């Protein structure tokens, strides 16, 4: 028994050492964002702001078109998430519950999209979206990012685990294929919908390179481009940058706090179980 205590101590110490490594950068960043501009660089540095202020936030909010960036990002993230859920659920269901040679082929095609990420075909993708007339529009940001192998396979995994008998029973009762999907299968997959919703929202909220390519007019900018433009300036205004960065994170943190169980409990490696 006497060697149980050291184990506890070691494991807990190791865990909290890692927590410190992961937590301190964010904590330092948050504390810094409440320091007035003059205090940011005055040595000796203090952990807590001596004169806490929110001027960095207000300055960030007013000197950039921040509310517009917020609105744009929200439109992109919400609409992309809704479409992603619909397309992933329908496609994942078809791949799980029907057997056709072309469905198998399409499964492989979807997998291939993970191997060949969008960044690789950036310039041709840009030309296509431009030719579709979506350049400089939020629709142009949303459209190519909707299709996701992760989402499709999350649903496929889930529907594979739904017993076939349920589908057969619905068929015997004369329920049409699509109505079975909408009335029975889709409600069953609620946890997956929630998981994919928060993931997709996070991806689109944090997207940078594609919005950067497709958006040219500052009126259409998303938050990430807005923040990156402060970073890219000749002389970085750290006070504004810290404020803007922290502000841009708030919506995701709120959503995460509400939906966290769907992410943390998601068995993301469900397919690996035998």
């Amino acid at each position, binding site marked *: 028994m006497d060697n149980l205590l050291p184990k506890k101590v070691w494991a807990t110490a190791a865990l909290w050492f890692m927590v410190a490594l992961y937590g301190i950068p964010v904590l330092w960043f948050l504390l810094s964002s409440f320091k007035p501009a003059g205090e940011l660089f005055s040595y000796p540095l203090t952990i807590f702001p001596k004169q806490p202020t929110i001027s960095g936030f207000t300055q960030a909010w007013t000197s950039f078109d921040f509310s517009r960036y917020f609105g744009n990002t929200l439109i992109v993230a919400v609409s992309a998430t809704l479409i992603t859920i619909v397309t992933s659920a329908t496609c994942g269901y078809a791949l799980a519950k029907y*057997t056709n040679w072309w*469905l198998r082929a399409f499964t492989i095609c979807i997998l291939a999209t993970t191997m060949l990420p969008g960044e690789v075909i950036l310039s041709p993708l840009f030309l296509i979206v431009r030719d579709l007339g979506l350049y400089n529009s939020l629709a142009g940001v949303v459209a190519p990012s909707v299709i996701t192998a992760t989402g499709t396979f999350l649903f496929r995994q889930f529907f594979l685990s739904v017993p076939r008998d349920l589908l057969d029973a619905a068929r015997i009762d004369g329920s049409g294929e699509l109505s079975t999907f909408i009335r029975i299968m889709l409600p069953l997959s609620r946890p997956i919908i929630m998981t994919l919703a928060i993931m997709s929202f996070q991806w689109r909220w944090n997207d940078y390179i594609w919005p950067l390519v497709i958006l040219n007019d500052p009126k259409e900018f998303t938050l990430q481009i807005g923040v990156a433009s402060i970073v890219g300036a000749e002389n970085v205004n750290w006070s504004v940058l810290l404020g803007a960065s922290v502000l841009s994170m708030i919506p995701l943190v709120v959503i995460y706090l509400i939906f966290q169980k769907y992410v943390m409990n998601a068995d993301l490696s469900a*397919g690996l179980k*035998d």
Partner: protein
Amino acid sequence: MAESVPQSAGRANETPARTASRRWPRRRTRRHDRYTLAPLLLISSNLALFLLFFVWPAVIGLGYSFTSYTGVGSAPFVGLDNYQRLLNDEAFYAATVRTLIFTAAVVPLTYVASLSAAVLLVSPYSRGKPVARVIFFVPWLISPIIAGVIWRWIFGENFGLVNYVIIALGGEAVPWQSNANLSLIIVVIAATWGSTAVNMLMFVAAIKNVPTAYYEAASLDGAGSWAKFRHITLPSIAPTSFIVILLTTLHSMKEYALIQAVNAGGPGSENNLLIQYIFTTGFRRAQIGYASAASFVLMLILMIIAIAQLVINRRKDS
């Protein structure tokens, strides 16, 4: 585009479907005949998006890589010229090497960090797990741009916390921004920090799925914690390890936003990675043909890495 989440699902789960079809050969054929319209309708939206935003750009991208297209006007055919130029392009060569170094550093670090975090979160001995889990997960919420800003702030040459501590301890200020290798280290740290959460979740699920009977049997044989980890946990989670390594590799090879925020590929262009190179040539200099050729070289590298890892994984299995 940037999906920092496991695309593990699925891949390994071919087995149930296959056994099911073997068990019910007659039913399967009947199904095959009866249902074509419904599944076609169900996949139609994904299929359309796949063709429009994946196949089509891939095809015209390959086409443009043989031209000197600039985004407007005609696209004069130049054959393999672009590829030959790439072979002699020092900037491209430097970006490729830098990308490979970056990936070779991030992948093992991410693997060790996320596995350690997962082991500690599953361990019956550690305390404070619920809080730790949330803190480990915070970096997932933070975009690559903001993560870059956070690490840039900490590693600032004249104002950063790290240099402040180093000086307070009697050291000399470290040129984190003006030295190319040091600034790459910051990007590596930031990338590892950012990609731990999701991989950690996958490892937690995998470790929880290892049958406890194995550990009990090992305990009876007098195995220590390390022996159990080495001989039971590691082999049992091998499939997850494979997925984590593969996805982290693919992800690191296309890093862009993080580096842009930490140092914009600087100092100068010394830390330009492949995506930055492609972005600059394609969009800043409008050499779409040339950038497409570079894209296809990147694609080739990604495919070689993926196939090599698959082959190694197969060989280990057998």
